[in-house]
């Protein structure tokens, strides 16, 4: 019985189809008679469109339609709005006197291109080859203009928007500026660093794509979209077309990875919908890989001027940051989120009495940025964990001792952070100890000496982290349970798995709470016609929030069914309890199974809201607070000083995610996050040239980790139940990506310190490490 329940390493229900090659991703289906579409993209980062002649393409073989920005504007198709403005709270908000300059991305640009890859024209033809050939016949005359791509150069660079000449979309601040200034004035020591969080490209292995169908008889669209947020995409489509949401059905099957990049509505989805409506045929578009690099929103990209004020006992008095965040050319759907979510975590696991972060979110001639695994939290944690190491070095304290001295003490919980978060109790010190033991940190000096004897530099890096995730701040998820007369249960849920294994996780909850075997459980996600509402998947909230909704719906279902069972058992309702898959009369052996109760309900004429006979229950769960997972990462690296090559020798992470729903799925989430964080730290460099051309637009140029780049991961759960939801769990999807970049770079800096390198920015590619070593050698006159 227990094999499929909670806390068990249940292998996934998703696997049989995916392992046999029977998954259904967007490019695995083509409706009969579908047309194929291709996007013509801007070749310049910044240019005026002097003229555009689409006529040669319109007359090309097989072409059914060509759309330009002018066509779209004439058709009244709106631009994509930002769905989350910079937050205003008691602790934070837009700077006084400033305002949010939202610049919305059109599906097709009409007069001026603002990043390489921006959509200029959309060609629809009978075959993809015909559409490709025709797109090359479109004649566009561009007047190139100067471009700026780096966020801290943006305020002095060529304006992306003429009416925002300083290239600032918004100035936002959090914390207490006056208290922070006085703490700095009284400081014994100030530690300063300029810290760069490199721009990341998300690279889910399945590229984005869309198939749009228009049903003229009902005036409705069906859009097949691999997305993390089906209902969010539907809402955005309705906004763009200026119609009601009921006009769209968004359908999602298997999603080949998301990581935040498949959260929002993109131009090509709008274009497919326009063409399907106009042409009365299905229209399919799937990005090739270079389009994915050029057209998918990017992540991270932040420059932080950070300062720590210390007293004479090496305790932190205050933290101050001046951040430049790169929004790209437009405010993406959730573009304002990472720059404002990162500073929220700036105090991390430490007691920092005063804090102030000033953010300038800047426009540049680059692809818009949007959430990427952690959505700002990894950026914020990276800055503070780098500063902690820098401060330890400058005070001569061991980095771990320095951190211990500044941890939020156990008696301070529940703890209100200077950014306004209310942390659940966290056992920071114990988790550090556990990680040290597991990593055999005591043996590190010997391992370093051994490496040195062989001419290699070995370093140990630590990073602590705590984050807020798993819902909160008014987010909710809804769960519908539909019971068939034979006792089979269908769960309709608004979250959307894109690799996490939700079908399995939700099935485990229903198995545990209703005693149903998996074959009697069906999970429905990704169909906005069947699932009434949905927040979708992001922010590590699917199971804390969606799982909570399922538990509450089960409770309601049991209450709904109990009178029917009681009637059948000829007992009073209050004497009936639900246990081990059956309603039982307390203190007797009288019982009726869940399935028999369901059959009886149907026989009595109970009808569900979908018209079918049977029972149903609905629940919405809105967590009262976020969940606060935390942990410690230890990374050991070896650097070859001759080549600059960095090898991860060992990696240990200890994390508190509350109760563990499925240790296999949990390890999968943590490992994946670690790999993405280590990729950003060691390998992945998004490079633009001076004219704004994206140089890293293939897997040969943008180096994401391969099997021989990564170590075995030591991951250990540390369990304290979360108070925030019925399953006692904390969000786990983003933790790995938050802890691993600072752990890795602190390790690299620890290794390089003996060679005179005391500052270094990600990524630690061999060339960059080699250059840092060389510069230090020249500086020392060696």
């Amino acid at each position, binding site marked *: 019985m227990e094999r499929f329940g909670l806390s068990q390493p249940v292998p996934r229900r*998703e696997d049989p189809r995916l392992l046999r090659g029977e998954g259904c991703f967007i490019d695995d289906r083509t409706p009969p008679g579908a047309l194929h579409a291709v996007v013509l993209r801007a070749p310049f980062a910044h240019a005026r469109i002097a003229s555009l002649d689409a006529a040669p393409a319109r007359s090309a073989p097989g072409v059914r339609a060509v759309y330009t920005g002018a066509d779209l504007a004439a058709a009244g198709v709106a631009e994509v709005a930002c769905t989350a403005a910079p937050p205003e709270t008691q602790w934070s908000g837009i700077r006084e006197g400033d305002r949010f300059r939202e610049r919305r991305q059109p599906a097709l640009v009409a007069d001026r291109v603002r990043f390489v890859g921006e959509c200029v024209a959309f060609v629809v033809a009978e075959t993809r080859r015909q559409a490709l050939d025709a797109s090359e016949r479109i004649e566009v005359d561009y007047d190139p203009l100067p471009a700026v791509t780096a966020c801290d150069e943006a305020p002095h660079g060529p304006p992306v928007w003429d009416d925002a000449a300083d290239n600032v979309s918004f100035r936002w601040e959090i914390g207490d500026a006056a208290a922070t200034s006085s703490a700095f004035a009284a400081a014994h020591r100030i530690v300063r660093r300029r810290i760069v969080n490199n721009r990341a490209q998300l690279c889910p*292995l399945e590229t984005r794509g869309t198939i749009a169908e228009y049903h003229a008889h009902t005036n409705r669209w069906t859009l097949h979209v691999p997305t993390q947020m089906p209902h969010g995409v539907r809402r955005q489509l309705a906004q763009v077309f200026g119609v009601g949401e009921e006009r769209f059905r968004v359908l999602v099957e298997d999603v080949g*990875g998301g990581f935040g990049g498949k959260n929002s509505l993109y131009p090509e989805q709008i274009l497919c919908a326009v063409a399907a409506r106009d042409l009365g045929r299905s229209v399919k578009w799937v990005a090739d*890989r270079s389009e994915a690099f050029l057209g998918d929103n990017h992540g991270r990209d932040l420059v932080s001027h950070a300062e720590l004020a210390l007293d004479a006992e090496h305790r932190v008095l205050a933290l101050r940051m001046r951040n430049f965040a790169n929004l790209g050319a437009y405010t993406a759907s959730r573009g304002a989120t990472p720059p404002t979510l990162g500073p929220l975590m700036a105090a991390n696991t430490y007691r920092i009495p005063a804090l102030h972060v000033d953010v300038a979110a800047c426009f540049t001639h680059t692809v818009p940025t949007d959430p990427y695994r952690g959505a700002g939290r990894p950026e914020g944690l990276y800055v503070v964990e780098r500063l902690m190491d820098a401060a330890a070095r400058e005070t001569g304290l061991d980095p771990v001792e320095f951190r211990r001295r500044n941890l939020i003490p156990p008696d301070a919980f529940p703890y209100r952070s200077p950014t306004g978060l209310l942390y659940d109790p966290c056992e920071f010190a114990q988790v550090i100890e556990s990680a040290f033991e597991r990593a055999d940190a005591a043996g590190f000096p010997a391992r370093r000496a051994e490496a040195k004897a062989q001419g290699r530099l070995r370093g140990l890096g630590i990073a602590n982290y705590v984050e807020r995730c798993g819902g909160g701040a008014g987010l909710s998820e809804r769960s519908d349970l539909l019971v068939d007369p034979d006792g089979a249960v269908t769960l309709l849920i608004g979250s959307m798995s894109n*690799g996490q294994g939700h079908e399995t996780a939700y099935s485990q909850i229903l198995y545990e709470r209703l005693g149903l075997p998996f074959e009697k459980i069906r999970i429905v996600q990704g169909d906005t016609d069947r699932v009434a509402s949905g927040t979708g998947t992001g922010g590590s909230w699917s199971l804390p929030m969606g799982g909570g909704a399922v538990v509450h719906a089960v409770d309601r279902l049991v209450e709904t069914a109990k009178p029917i069972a009681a009637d059948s058992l000829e007992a009073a309702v209050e004497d009936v309890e639900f246990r081990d898959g059956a309603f039982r009369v307390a203190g007797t052996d009288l019982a009726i199974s869940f399935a028999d109760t369901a059959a009886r309900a149907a026989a009595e004429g109970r009808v569900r809201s979908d018209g079918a006979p049977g029972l149903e229950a609905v629940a919405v769960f809105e967590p009262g607070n976020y969940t606060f997972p935390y942990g410690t990462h230890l990374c050991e690296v070896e650097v070859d000083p001759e080549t600059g090559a960095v090898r991860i020798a060992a990696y240990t992470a200890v994390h508190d995610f509350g109760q563990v729903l499925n240790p296999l799925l949990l390890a999968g989430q943590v490992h*994946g996050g670690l*790999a993405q964080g280590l990729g950003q730290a060691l390998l992945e460099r998004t490079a633009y040239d001076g004219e704004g051309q994206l140089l890293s637009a293939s897997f040969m140029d943008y180096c994401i*980790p391969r099997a*021989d780049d990564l170590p075995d991961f030591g991951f250990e759960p540390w369990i304290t139940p979360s108070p925030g939801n019925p399953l006692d769990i904390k969000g786990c999807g983003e933790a790995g990506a938050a802890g691993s970049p600072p752990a890795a770079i602190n390790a690299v800096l620890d290794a390089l310190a003996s060679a005179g390198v005391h500052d270094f920015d990600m990524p630690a590619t061999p060339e960059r490490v080699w250059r840092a070593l060389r510069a230090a050698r020249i500086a020392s006159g060696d």
Partner: protein
Amino acid sequence: MIRLLTYRLNGRERTDAVPDNVLLLDHLRETVGLTGTKTGCDGGECGACTVLVDGAPVLSCLTLSATVAGRSVETVESLAEGGRLAFIQEGFHRKLGSQCGYCTPGLIMASEALLRQDPDPSEDAIREALGSNICRCTGYVKIIEAVRWAAESSAARSGSPAEPAR
């Protein structure tokens, strides 16, 4: 020019009319209709399209269909027999070697090729053999465990003939 191409696909001989310039990947997905083999990049960078040709792993996105004339091609659809997963698939299932599942067919075929050549590969050998396949979800640890599981289970099976096949 279109020619008749005769080859073995997943154990069965077949003949298709194939233009000279069609890649094996597109032929398998679009003409034959086997969509298990995936397109992950613009050519030779990610391994999602890995199939076996005469038992060796090949990137079908860099292979012209015409070059498999008279040869044997195996795709991920060939592995499960009679409804049972092959060892390597079972390993991916038990150890969570797959998350979103998009790179999975390519990784399974690359792993299958490795195990045929080296039934007892070390962790380093597995990391090297799978180095041409990109997975963005797993961090590879669980994939390596999956391959080791398949190697050990396969060895255990051949050691005890009483065990049912697969």
